[in-house]
């Protein structure tokens, strides 16, 4: 079908893209402004670059600690949920387990509840119940890695299941004929074939853990605080250091952007929780 104005969509989409990009651009503008420039007349055009905010963030020991925590927690969590999700999907698709459909559905429901609801019980459980002697999960990186499983593990199982299910069972059968054990089948046949799906799951769960704020803000005070909580600290405690806040935001955004460009095509299925497929 020929349209009368072939340039019209281009013009409209340029405007839409500007509206989408402008907030991110403005974040960058604020992050490279001199402090005394902040409160002068807002200006869309960048006239000078002032990198000290980034320097301050990157050399601040507290924020560096937060950044390291964020890295450890999101990487640890992504690795853990992808591994466990993979094992669970292997069990759910290759073994004849009683009630496995109900188990699958139950794992998914764990993600549906509003996280705000679980703030208080998780806080109480971590501080009062889940402890052995002096060892407590409260305000620890391990604790946060496990807590993030509550929303990332269901997601990993949900996205990995079609991948594992799609690998032909004839391959397993052939290997079993040759006397392989279930572990060899898992490692030598299923794992290599599921690798693309595993990579996408790993990356998306990493981003979700990296982006999480609410649980980190409530369940940590010092040892396991993440970059996103650092962001809110700069809004409340120091009377809002706008430049620093913008610089932290940009630094939090960058890893997600890199990841985004890598797995862009696969993100939709992940974010819509597979519901669109049907």
């Amino acid at each position: 079908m020929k349209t009368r104005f072939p340039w019209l969509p281009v013009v409209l989409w340029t405007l839409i893209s500007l509206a989408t990009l402008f907030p991110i651009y403005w974040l960058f503008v604020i992050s490279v402004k001199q402090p005394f420039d902040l409160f002068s007349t807002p200006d869309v055009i960048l006239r000078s670059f002032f990198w000290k905010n980034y320097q301050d963030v990157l050399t601040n020991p507290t924020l560096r600690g937060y950044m390291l925590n964020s890295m450890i927690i999101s990487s640890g969590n992504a690795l853990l949920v992808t591994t466990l999700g993979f094992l669970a999907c292997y069990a759910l698709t290759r073994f004849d387990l009683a009630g496995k459909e109900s188990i699958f559905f139950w794992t998914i429901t764990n993600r549906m509840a509003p996280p705000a609801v679980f703030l208080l019980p998780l806080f109480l459980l971590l501080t009062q119940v889940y402890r052995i002697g002096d060892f407590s999960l409260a305000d620890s990186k391990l604790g946060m890695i496990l807590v993030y499983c509550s929303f990332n593990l269901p997601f990993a199982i949900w996205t990995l299941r079609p991948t594992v299910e799609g690998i032909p069972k004839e391959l397993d059968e052939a290997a079993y004929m040759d006397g392989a054990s279930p572990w060899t089948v898992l490692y030598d046949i299923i794992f290599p074939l599921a690798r693309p799906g595993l990579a996408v799951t790993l990356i998306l769960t990493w981003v979700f853990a990296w982006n999480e704020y609410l649980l980190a803000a409530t369940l940590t005070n010092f040892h396991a605080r993440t970059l996103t909580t650092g962001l809110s600290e700069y809004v409340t405690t120091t009377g809002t250091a706008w430049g620093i806040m913008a610089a932290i935001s940009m630094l939090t955004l960058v890893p997600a952007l890199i990841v985004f460009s890598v797995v862009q095509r696969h993100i939709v299925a992940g974010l819509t929780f597979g519901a669109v497929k049907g």
Partner: protein
Amino acid sequence: MHSQKLGWLLLSPTIVILGLFGIFPFIYVLWVSFHSWNPFAANPGMIFNWAENYRRLVFDPQFLASLGITLTFVFFAVVSELVLGYILAQALLKDFPGKAVFRTIHTLPLIMAPIIVGSVWKLMTTPSIGIIPYLLRSWFGYDLNIGQSAVAAFTVTVIMDIWHWTPLVTLSLIAALVSLPSDPFEQAQIDGAGKSQIFWHITLPLIRPAMLATVFIRLMDALRTVDEVLMLTGGGPGSSTRYIGVHIFKEVFPKTNYGYGSAISVIVLYLTIVVCWLLYVGLIAPRVKRG
């Protein structure tokens, strides 16, 4: 050769972790919600008080107000996202130069952390440093102050949500529209049906399942919005943007009223389940059954 034992062994870590951090918190919060418990009060012990917390909750004007504005917020945000997302999805079906780039840019907000989205919009709308209040003042003489005007703060949270989540709706609807059969449309055109007739009688019924699935996801997510709003307005001014998640966050911890806080959590969880279940049973399930 496929031993059941090994299967359960492979599943056990998942079940244990989700049990400890999913099911057990729920049982625990249910149990605490029937007690009066404030560790920093004069009487710090846990005292069983039947359904007193729930009785109090039903008459708590703050809680009810929060529930009301949450539903208003969800309604405006989700409806706008649906309409806008549909229009953009249709627009992306046609071919035009640079389509892939525009589509990628449009998807960008999805990957941003809600707290970053909140801080971005705070930097844009805070009077004195934000560009939006400045432009509105110099072009229209309108004074936008989200720290003072309840309506302004509410509107900005809705616009922020639209900016953040419309791409999700667009992408899911594109997936649905692409997979539509072309015969009914050709037939309708031969029969001389108008554009709006085609939309109401052919397109809409065909993409209804995908549309409802999208509404479902957006509704669930919008109901639990916390981070962005906490960052942007902190629930204010007054309690005009104190959506239910923000309400829990602000109510439970500073006041350390654990029994009452648990009751709020249980009720909110219950309401979310009921809303989603009603939607599922009323709208999605009958369709699935019929075809």
